């Protein structure tokens, strides 16, 4: 092995490794605790001292997806034998299932609004980024700064007039309203990121295509888009994660039909007080997809979270 003055010694590497792994374990502990609590029974979840080893149960997940009522012995007798495994779990807690909970709907809303706004944002954002990257747009720098500055406003501050505007347009508590809103919020990030990605594609490719008789549009979608695919995909995932996690607008502008999961999960309560296993189960289902995306995205993380200000 060649000697390098900048390569840390093995001892330093060991110390650094141990410290970082130590921090990582502390930082991931609350997340593991969420996942674990989702599989605990009610009493186990609030036991003292906190239980690390416990008998796993699907109680939390059953409670998450169902509405139940506390049952007297008469009701239990009248209901007859449980028909399936989840009814059995509800009976074991002394409750009977009265119907499906709203979690499924809320989760579906998150999916519709998240993917809808991401798709729209990518279409508008890629086009705008291409124009900013390739053409002489009047007032380009001002427009780009304007696009960036829209991100500085506290959501609550713009929420008042948006609330009034949506009410007048009938967009309050609708999927379309939320999709448009999240698209607008995400556009600033997307345009900046995508412009960076498109800037890196050599103009010569398009010029060659134009000489070969392609129109601008053809050059755009046959030459530029395939080249920018990776950039577009990682930008899309950032937009999706934002829309997925957003809370402030969701809690103020939606209540019934279009409510997403983040405002809903904290409101989950059981038949007697806060049902932490159900909350944890809801959180687990909601958070795990993002963790998976984070692992897939780890190479592109930096550019997305810094608005493209830091490039590799």
């Amino acid at each position, binding site marked *: 092995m060649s000697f390098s*003055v*900048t390569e840390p010694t093995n001892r330093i590497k*060991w110390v*650094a*490794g141990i*410290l970082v792994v130590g*921090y*990582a374990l502390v930082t*991931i502990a*609350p*997340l593991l*605790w969420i996942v674990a609590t989702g599989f605990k029974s009610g009493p186990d979840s609030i*036991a*003292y001292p*906190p239980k690390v080893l416990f008998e796993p149960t699907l109680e939390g997940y059953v409670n998450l997806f169902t509405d139940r009522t506390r049952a007297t012995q008469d009701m239990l007798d009248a209901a007859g034998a449980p028909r399936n495994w989840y009814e059995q779990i509800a009976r074991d807690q002394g409750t009977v299932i009265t119907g499906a909970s709203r979690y499924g709907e809320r989760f579906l809303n998150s999916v519709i609004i998240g993917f809808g706004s991401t798709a729209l944002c990518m279409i*508008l*954002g890629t086009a*705008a980024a*291409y*124009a900013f990257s390739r*053409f*002489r747009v009047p007032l380009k720098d001002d*427009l780009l700064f304007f696009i960036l*500055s*829209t991100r*500085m*406003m*506290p*959501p*609550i*501050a*713009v*929420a*008042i*007039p948006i*609330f009034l505007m949506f009410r007048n347009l009938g967009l309050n508590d609708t999927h379309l309203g939320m999709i*448009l809103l999240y*698209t*607008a919020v995400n*556009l600033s990030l997307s345009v900046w990121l995508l412009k960076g990605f498109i800037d890196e594609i050599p103009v010569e490719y398009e010029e060659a295509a134009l000489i070969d008789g392609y129109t*601008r*549009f053809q050059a755009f979608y046959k030459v530029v888009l395939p080249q920018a695919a990776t950039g577009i995909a990682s930008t899309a995932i950032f937009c999706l994660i934002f829309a997925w*996690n957003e*809370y402030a607008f969701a809690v103020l502008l939606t209540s019934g039909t279009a409510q997403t999961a*983040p405002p809903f*999960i*904290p409101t989950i309560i059981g038949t007697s007080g806060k049902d932490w296993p159900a*909350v944890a189960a809801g*959180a687990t289902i*909601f*958070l795990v997809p*993002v*963790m998976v995306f*984070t*692992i897939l995205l*780890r190479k592109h993380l*930096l550019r997305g*979270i*810094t608005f493209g200000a*830091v490039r590799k």
Partner: protein
Amino acid sequence: MTDTPIDKIARATPAGMARRIRGFSDRTIAWIFVAPTIFLLLAVNIFPLIWTIRLSFTDFRVNRPNREVEWVGLRNYERILTDPDIWATMQATAHFLIWTIVLQVLIGFALAYLINKNFRGNDLWTTIIVFPMMLSPAVVGNFWTFLYQPQIGLFNYVIAFFTGVDPASFSMIGDVNLAPWAIVIADTWMWTPFVMLICLAGLRSIPDSIYEAAECDRASKWRQFWTITVPMVLPFLMLAVLFRGIENFKMFDLVVQLTGGGPGNTTTLTSIDLKREAFEKWRTGYSSAYAVILFVTVFGLASIYVKALNKVKQR
């Protein structure tokens, strides 16, 4: 020269139509591509902003739409700037901002420095450390209330385990002295990875040759750290502080779920206060003025800071 029929048609076509066949001009395409974005941003950002400014001079209330709206001039602004409660809110926000930034910069930089030592498996552990910042703050904040429960909460148990105090004797979110720290801890847990990632980018941008040169000059490791590493990472670090500063000034979701602004008003950050005024007390005019004051503060502070950042970059 051969004259094919296609060439003849091409020559006979008027210039305007030829352009239309060939496609739109670049200028037209530029507008077609940019216009929808600008339109949407105007509709969802600028139009509401102008509306907010207009409302801020009135005593309009959303919950009483039929009432006569009066122009009150600058009275809303006057009332906000002289209200001691607002200053208490600002203080809570300042406490939150300063401590989260200090902790996140220190821990984030230290982590980046250690990860940059390139030990085996550092990619995997970096990804794990990044998890918290990718998750929904509201959902995670709500779960932190569970970790902070006296006695049964994991956080209290761990603290009790290491310090020997009774885990039921303190309540992070119920105590007026501890609650401001409860939100600082949760936010630091969540956002330290952000500062870490940016510092890491800074550290990785320093070319090895500079260290090699310093080594040739027999500069000590300590001196190398202060004269090479720190100045080279500083612009990145300042960028991270800018982003965190703006984000935490806007902070709403994590804290509202964690403490709801309580106990008392000890963790009522400006966004939470604004939400109460606008969507619980429905004082629309008053809260619009409040929102305008917040904008001006963020823009003002951010632009002063960006100037300072540019100076550091130029050095």
